[in-house]
């Protein structure tokens, strides 16, 4: 098949272009399990301590919903429980970004056309992205195996866990390869991939949260949930791994079949004609900002609405689940009834939602950099548009969309929870709590604006900062990191509402930091050359 002529060269090109970011991804993913294992060895040195830890975890609804149940009260079981879902999400994001970057993005910029004019085969660019994607997951898996064996865990469980993570990654390589065939912009391809990751995670959470009400099947239809069902270190089941790998193969075969038939640069969705004249409202940088951002904003909001409704519906199921466990009900009563579990559950869902909302805010504000490097900013600023208005036209979205996302999510969660317990005032309680989660995402948006204003070519640092902040907040505890490190993440400082102590000071400080960052970003951009 000469469709893949020049595959070796294409693979070398992909590796060369990703020589910095890919190793970072692989190292982070590969080292995390060993890091968690060594932290847990320190925290729970004996079997008894491990069993006690597992019981404590099982009694915390937020933990179970967010990370799934502990399947075995051993070191391996706890490591898998703590890091499995996070690793699945990480390999998913790595795979989607990698494949899109080397397929649809290349077509969109026209570089694919240049490649197509050389002696490189029609399928070689896609094949190269897929091969590197599969290999990256495999290498990360090998690192996981090495790290966990080093920590003294048994071979069977280690292999099962690593294979589960690798095959989830492979499945997302397949999903991204498919998503690269359908729409005509890399932004949309990435969005499709990210949406599948988000949906997989949310379905898994809903499935685990709704176990008591028979909703566990939701977990089974999620790749991330399926990977968790491998049950590493808890009497391994191997068939979910086979299912994940088969799904990946099917998606890849379909993608290659489409790619073989379609024209370079074309899409399965035909492009419609537009109006010959601009509507009366399209008359300023602000209107253009709305036009460029609205599709994304509506999609995200809809996703937050759906997941909010889904996740809220099971908030009460948790209390029920807890009450059925006799050893736990004592503890629960002592701690103040099952409502504290419901609250902790709602709070942890809001916390995760605020991280995702920050990603949307970042995407909105970094549109500035996209517009600049695409050459659109030059055209706008050559018009009678001052720099602050132009930055404002996207910063507005960076600031507003996290609020809308979090409020919609909170309201939806409050509504479905309220309906399930017959108390609709829950909507106001949850929305009120949701608002305190906004400032932390604003800090990330402000930081991204500062990077854009001061060192535009390094705008990707905004994403790196969000990644680090989320890893610190979500995994910092498990890695037994020092408090000062955890404090670097703005999400660490958000009061844990509902249920926790409503501290006003951290919220004010976060707001001030966000304002200062955004202000400096705006000032820095006002002084610098457009690129």
């Amino acid at each position: 098949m000469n469709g893949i002529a020049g595959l070796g060269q294409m693979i070398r090109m992909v590796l060369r272009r990703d020589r910095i970011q890919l190793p970072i991804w692989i190292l982070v993913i590969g080292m995390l399990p060993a890091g968690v294992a060594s932290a847990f060895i320190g925290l729970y040195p004996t079997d008894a301590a491990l069993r006690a830890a597992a019981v404590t975890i099982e009694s915390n609804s937020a933990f179970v919903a967010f990370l799934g149940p502990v399947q075995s009260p051993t070191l391996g079981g706890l490591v898998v429980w703590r890091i499995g879902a996070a690793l699945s999400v990480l390999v998913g994001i790595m795979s989607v970004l990698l494949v899109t970057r080397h397929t649809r993005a290349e077509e969109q910029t026209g570089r694919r056309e240049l490649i197509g004019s050389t002696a490189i085969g029609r399928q070689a660019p896609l094949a190269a992205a897929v091969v590197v994607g599969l290999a990256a997951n495999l290498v990360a898996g090998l690192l996981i195996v090495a790290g966990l064996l080093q920590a003294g865990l048994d071979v069977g469980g280690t292999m099962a866990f690593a294979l589960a993570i690798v095959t989830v990654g492979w499945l997302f390589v397949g999903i991204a390869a498919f998503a690269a065939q359908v729409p005509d912009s890399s932004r949309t391809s990435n969005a499709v991939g990210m949406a599948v990751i988000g949906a997989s995670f949310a379905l898994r959470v809903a499935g685990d949260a709704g176990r008591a009400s028979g909703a566990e099947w939701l977990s089974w239809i999620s790749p991330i949930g399926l990977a968790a069902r491998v049950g590493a270190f808890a009497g391994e089941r191997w068939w979910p791994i086979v299912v994940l790998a088969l799904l990946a193969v099917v998606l890849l075969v379909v993608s290659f079949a489409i790619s073989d038939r379609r024209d370079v640069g074309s899409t399965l969705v035909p492009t419609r004609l537009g109006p010959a004249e601009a509507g009366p409202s399209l008359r300023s940088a602000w209107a253009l900002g709305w036009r460029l951002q609205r599709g994304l904003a509506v999609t995200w909001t809809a996703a937050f609405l759906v997941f909010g409704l889904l996740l809220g519906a099971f908030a009460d199921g948790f209390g029920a689940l807890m009450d059925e466990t006799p050893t736990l009900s004592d503890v629960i009563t002592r701690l103040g009834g099952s409502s504290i579990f419901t609250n902790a559950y709602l709070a942890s869902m809001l916390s995760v939602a605020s991280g995702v909302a920050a990603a949307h805010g970042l995407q909105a504000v970094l549109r500035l950099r996209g517009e600049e490097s695409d050459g659109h900013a030059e055209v706008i600023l050559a018009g009678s548009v001052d720099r602050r208005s132009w930055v404002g036209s996207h910063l507005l979205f960076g600031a507003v969309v996290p609020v809308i996302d979090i409020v919609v999510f909170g309201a939806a969660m409050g509504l479905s929870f309220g309906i399930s317990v017959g108390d609709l005032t829950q909507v106001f309680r949850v929305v009120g709590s949701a608002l305190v989660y906004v400032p932390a995402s604003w800090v990330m948006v402000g930081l991204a604006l500062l990077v854009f204003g001061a060192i535009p070519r390094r705008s990707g640092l905004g994403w790196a900062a969000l990644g680090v902040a989320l890893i610190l907040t979500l995994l910092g505890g498990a890695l037994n990191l020092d408090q000062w490190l955890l404090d670097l993440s703005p999400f660490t400082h958000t009061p844990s509402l509902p249920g926790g102590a409503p501290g006003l000071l951290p919220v004010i400080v976060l707001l001030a930091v966000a304002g200062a960052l955004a202000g400096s970003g705006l000032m820095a951009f006002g002084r610098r050359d457009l690129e």
Partner: protein
Amino acid sequence: MESVIEVHGLEKSFGSTVALNGLDLSVARGEVHGFLGPNGAGKSTTIRILLGLIRADGGSARVLEGDPWRDATELHKRLAYVPGDVALWPMLSGGEVIDLLGRMGGGIDGARKLSLIERFELDPTKKCKTYSKGNRQKVALIAALAANAELLILDEPTSGLDPLMEAEFGRVIKEDAGNGRTVLMASHILSEVEALCERVSIVRTGRIVESGTLDDLRHLTRTTISARLVSVPPDLGELNGVHDLAVDGTTVDFQVDQAALESALRAITAAGVISLVSRPPTLEELFLRHYQGASL
């Protein structure tokens, strides 16, 4: 004569690369000014400073009697710009982009827009991502040419246009000049500049090396002479100011400096002239003279 663009000693570096090194430029109201130079000479950098998109490191620049950096938004209501590399929003239609650019500037003349769309044969309902390079160029050109602007700044305006559209563009610019619009046109297409511009400035490695009307510039350089003579004067090649002499039987071809023109003509008339063609230097020759042997 009122100056629309006045630039003195402009300097700009990007890291260790010096883009502008004391550039001077003066564009008078109502003229079509050619801004000539090879790739990387500093044309686009100058234009981006004039638009306040980047800031000069040194020197002064005035556009429409304002400061291009500080007064950018006010000035941009009075000028229109076509970038060298036209990038448009993929999901907007060409018609939408034309209107949007006009509205973000100083307004657009609707009737003129429609007539330009017709003259340039653009389909304004297509999404920008489906346009070819030439069609994207047309969108930017129509937006600029239909704008209510007193100054047009055009960076390589005809790149990607077919010859028919290039000619149409030339006609529109000539009409504009007749209507008193000032045009600064950066280009390296010499025939186009020669046909449209009254004055040119030639830039090389960040400095203006020549500036003036085409006639002025021609006086500074050599005239090409081809003649059939009765006999070839033996000392013609030795005359001061005669260059590139080629003798083929009794036919001679040579170039002569303006100052030596008279003595050269004397020499050949003394030898007896059967026929004579003299040609002023083309802009291309002018241009090449400045760049020949120069390390670009």
